[in-house]
């Protein structure tokens, strides 16, 4: 009922390569990348990426949008924490989307941000499947971007 993260390869602990499947209307929260490199390639459909500035330390207002763009099939994007934060969404109401993500070094926790206030909240990331096998949820923790 939300987008799924499907691990394909963990590169001997050096990276995580995963495929994300986005249904119509599915989107991620605004999130950071825990000091890792993040590459993304669109395999099917389109995804909108909205970049945000990091909120002020004591900030308590709406987060600032830096830019937004729609990534088409086969286009690539890159982000890391020094560039900023982003939200990725499938804005189509008729087509699903599929993207390939490479994170190096791998990470399993990051921060999500409330767009209205800039408050951040640490989350643990879970996989819907790993190497083709469904990963059963152990806890009810809210999963990630």
């Amino acid at each position, binding site marked *: *009922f*939300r987008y799924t993260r499907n691990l394909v390869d963990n590169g001997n602990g050096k990276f995580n390569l995963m495929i994300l499947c986005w249904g*119509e*209307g599915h*989107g991620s*929260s*605004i999130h950071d990348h825990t000091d890792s490199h993040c590459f993304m390639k669109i395999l099917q459909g389109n995804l909108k990426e909205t970049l945000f500035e990091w909120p002020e330390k004591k900030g308590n207002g709406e987060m600032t949008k830096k830019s937004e763009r729609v990534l088409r099939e086969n286009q690539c994007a890159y982000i890391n924490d020094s560039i900023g934060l982003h939200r990725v969404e499938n*804005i*189509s*109401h*008729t087509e699903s989307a599929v993207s390939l993500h490479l994170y190096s070094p791998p990470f399993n926790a990051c921060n*999500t*941000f*409330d*767009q*209205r206030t800039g*408050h951040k*909240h640490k989350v643990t990331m879970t996989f819907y499947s790993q190497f083709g096998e469904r990963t059963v949820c152990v806890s*009810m*923790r*809210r999963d990630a971007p």
Partner: protein
Amino acid sequence: LPAGLSQWFPALEVLDVSGTGLAEMGTELLSLPSLHTLLAKNNRLGGPGSLPKGLGQAPLARSLRVLNLSGNRFSEVPPALLRLRGLRSLSLGGNRLHSIPPDIQELQSLEFLYLGGNFITAIPPELAKLPSLRYLVLCDNKIQSIPPQLAQLHSLRSLSLHNNLLTYLPREILNLVHLEELSLRGNPLVVRFVRDLTYNPPSLQELAGRTVKARNIPYAPSDLPESLVRYLSLASNCPNPKCGGVYFDSCVRQIKFVDFCGKYRLPLMHYLCSPECSSPFSSASQSSTSQSESDSEDEASVAAHRMQKVLLG
């Protein structure tokens, strides 16, 4: 649709005519007895004749499970569609709908309903009469409020409300105990509420009605004019658990912010019978909490904790 479709493929179960520029689907559909999935997205459907006449009597009415009409030009939900009593999954995403018909409740087998990307301004309470609905998508519309009855959707697992015009939510939303996902971003949810200081005192009829209900005064249709019997049946209970009173037309609107450990503050609308009634939920940031409010606070914080896990950022 090609004529003779049902003669050539009488056992057809899945038909995908998406992206073919179709402006109408004719009677060829009516003689396909095994059809359970019909995908017709990204076409030019929406005018009269988009769906064939006699749809309600066709075998399709009971056999069709999945219908995808997203990316078309429907400005209203075609009434013929509501006769598809076996329908489990319906998508009308990316059309031009301005409303949802109350007769949507006829689709009693519906589990998945996608209405994102339309111009819908309000949700009919009848939508809550769908007992199997698990997944409801209403994102990217113009919805201004959620009817409290929506909390009766016991099977609801996922509710998508992002990018609408909601300023608050009904407090009943906390009753959706099976909800696993809720998206609310992109709504102008109020962050501050100024209590309306003007309070219209209740009418004599209302005061009398409140007393009849509060004191359990027995009455029968032979004792009162029919209009008053009906009036008494419309009493609403004050949500303040310490009150136990009722109200009819005169109530106080109040927004209480339910705090999720300082991360999110959701504005929830309450109706109270009078300004003196304290609300069942008090914000965690309020300093003094009286003994009488502590029970209802526990209730609120349990609900808030559950909702925190469910809220998508």
